[in-house]
């Protein structure tokens, strides 16, 4: 039983990453109607930015949490301005193909310069060590990841669902022409939204840097799992993608305990089940 609690908690940690990434995908999808295949690559760039900040400029983890999402977010906005915006009005699949190409380029370039085996990034001193919770030894850093990503997810939800800016965003999703008629610069809003979604991916990257090796392909396989998460949850609602992300992390964690052989397939199997029972996804509207 004790081991079970431990696995639940550990599952939440993975869930944090799923939630942050699928949230970013949902934000981008809502506004641009694009599935951002480059999300995994941008997540990786977040981790690498943290690495560079530390090793080139001596800027530590805490500043990296702020700076890396901004840097990668700006990179994302440049991508949106120079490439993605030309696809407006075309079939959505072109957006998928374009971002897939971008992902290949980014990952390939990093792989060429930094190899594949990965670079180390240490846990910040303030979060080193662990607590004995009785039923498990919880590294403090892991606890921090769960709490922090929960806060970020809720803040994003608040921003989009409860503020004026968010109201514009949602309105522009529904009817861009009308919103433009009110004198709101819709293209700029689209760019900023893409930057926000990408920034969330980069933030997840910084969070994961001390846990995993910083590797060029760290996002490549993860993104496919996140796609399945998105299919399960549906991208209709922000809260939906947050909850599905955490929930699937926990389910995966439990699988690792009860039947580890299936732990990397369980999300996909769940996806198939959901599709058979409720094709539109758990929270989604019809696509």
């Amino acid at each position, binding site marked *: 039983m004790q*081991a079970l609690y*431990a*696995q639940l908690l*550990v*599952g939440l*940690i*993975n869930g944090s990453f799923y939630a942050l990434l699928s949230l970013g995908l949902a934000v981008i999808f809502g506004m641009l109607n694009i599935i951002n295949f480059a999300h995994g690559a941008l997540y990786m760039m977040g981790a690498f930015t943290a690495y560079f900040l530390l090793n080139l400029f001596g800027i530590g983890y805490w500043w990296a949490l702020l700076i890396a999402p901004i840097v990668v977010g700006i990179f994302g906005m440049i991508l949106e301005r120079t490439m993605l915006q030309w696809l407006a009005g075309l079939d959505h699949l072109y957006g998928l193909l374009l971002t897939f190409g971008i992902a290949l380029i980014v990952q390939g370039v990093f*792989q*060429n310069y930094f*190899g*594949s*085996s*990965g*670079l*180390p990034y*240490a*846990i910040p001193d303030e979060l080193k060590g*662990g607590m004995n919770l009785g039923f*498990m*030894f919880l*590294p403090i*850093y*892991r606890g921090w990841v769960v709490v922090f990503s929960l806060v970020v997810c809720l803040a994003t939800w608040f921003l989009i669902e409860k503020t004026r800016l968010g109201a514009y965003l949602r309105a522009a999703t529904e009817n861009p022409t009308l919103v433009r008629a009110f004198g709101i610069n819709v293209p700029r809003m689209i760019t900023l939204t893409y930057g926000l979604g990408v920034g969330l991916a980069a933030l997840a990257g910084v969070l*994961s840097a001390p*846990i*995993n*090796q910083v*590797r060029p392909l*760290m996002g490549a*396989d*993860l993104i496919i799992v996140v796609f399945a998460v998105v299919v399960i949850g549906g991208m209709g609602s922000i809260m939906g993608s947050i909850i599905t992300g955490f929930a699937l992390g926990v389910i995966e*964690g439990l699988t*690792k*305990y009860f039947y*580890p*052989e299936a*732990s*990397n*397939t369980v999300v996909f199997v769940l996806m198939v089940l959901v599709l058979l029972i409720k094709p539109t996804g758990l929270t989604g509207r019809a696509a």
Partner: protein
Amino acid sequence: MKQQLSALLLGTALSFAAASGALAQDKTIKIGVLTDNSGLYSDLGGAGSTLAAQMAVEDSGLAAKGWKIDIISADHQNKPDIGTSMARQWIDVEKVDIFMDVLNSGVALAVNNVVKEKNAIMINTGAASSDLTNAQCSPNTIHWVYDTYMLANSTGQALVKAGGDTWYFLTADYAFGHALERDTAAVVTKSGGKVIGAVRHPLNTADFSSFLLQAQASKAKIIGMANAGGDTTNTIKQAAEFGIVAGGQKLAGLLLFITDVNSLGLKVAQGLNFTETFYWDLNDGTRAFSKRFSEKMKNKAMPSMVQAGVYSGLVHYFKALEAMGGNPHDGAKVVAKMKEMPTDDPLFGKGTIRVDGRKLHPAYLFEVKKPEESKGPWDYYKLIGTTPGDQAFRPLSESACPLVKK
């Protein structure tokens, strides 16, 4: 044909030298270094393997004796498909006589078939699979540096002897991981230890915390990592986070290289135990070679055992050719000659090549130094045990190789 670029450079230089000597016999050799130039294992083999081959050619002095030696290299991208089509093309079109490195077991086993079918030679220094000299053995292949059986055997035996008598395995859930776990578990039990459990994790797992918690709860003295590459380094890194080594358990890597230690850093890797057959700082011979090697490397890296193996393998190959006097194109014949002659070179010392194609030499169990013990870059290992060559590898009595007469 970009892979010819290096060949052209070296080839022209050498052919000038060769042109002066009279060619009584066919004395042209083409060496193909087939490796991973840019992926997961590029630090392990890659450009370093090509460099090692060039050094072997230069040191052999064969050019002055009228031999013409070309080296070409290419990237198989860790895909068996690309490996086989590259191998076919190299033999058919480029007339390559000998394949070096060929790391990645999948690619190695695929190339092994092509090389046998077309009677070329492969000296494999990079692949782990012990099948190359077991069920899949071939009269055209020599497995030079290490294999999974040896790693399991040496690490398992030595650690049990040192008191690590209870084991828990963290195993990558596919054939390779299963084989490593099975072989190591057998050795542990035979040496008087006990295996108290195992957990299978999927390949390329980012998060090992669940598995590490289970390993921690088992209270085993040794946690054997039957996995490789990124999985192993992530396990080690996260084990440090969960305080596993600090809590008194020991991590044993069953397939780990000096390049992994370099990427992890001593702070995380300290205290790890694992086996290699070459370390640059073993003796004067290895130090002299490694110093020359590292000066020529782009990032000043010391040679890995895979790269050292390329050098050592070629040194022996050249000796056999000199003894034969020429006509290097009958692969099986050259390999037979190589098996007849005892091996001796500064990197791996004296050794032999067994009938199944297994090169025998001692296996060393290392422990990774603490950061404060290290005197400089690449000073990583303490030698804590040596298994003699004839005991380190799979005995012929257990072999399923058809070349072994029973």
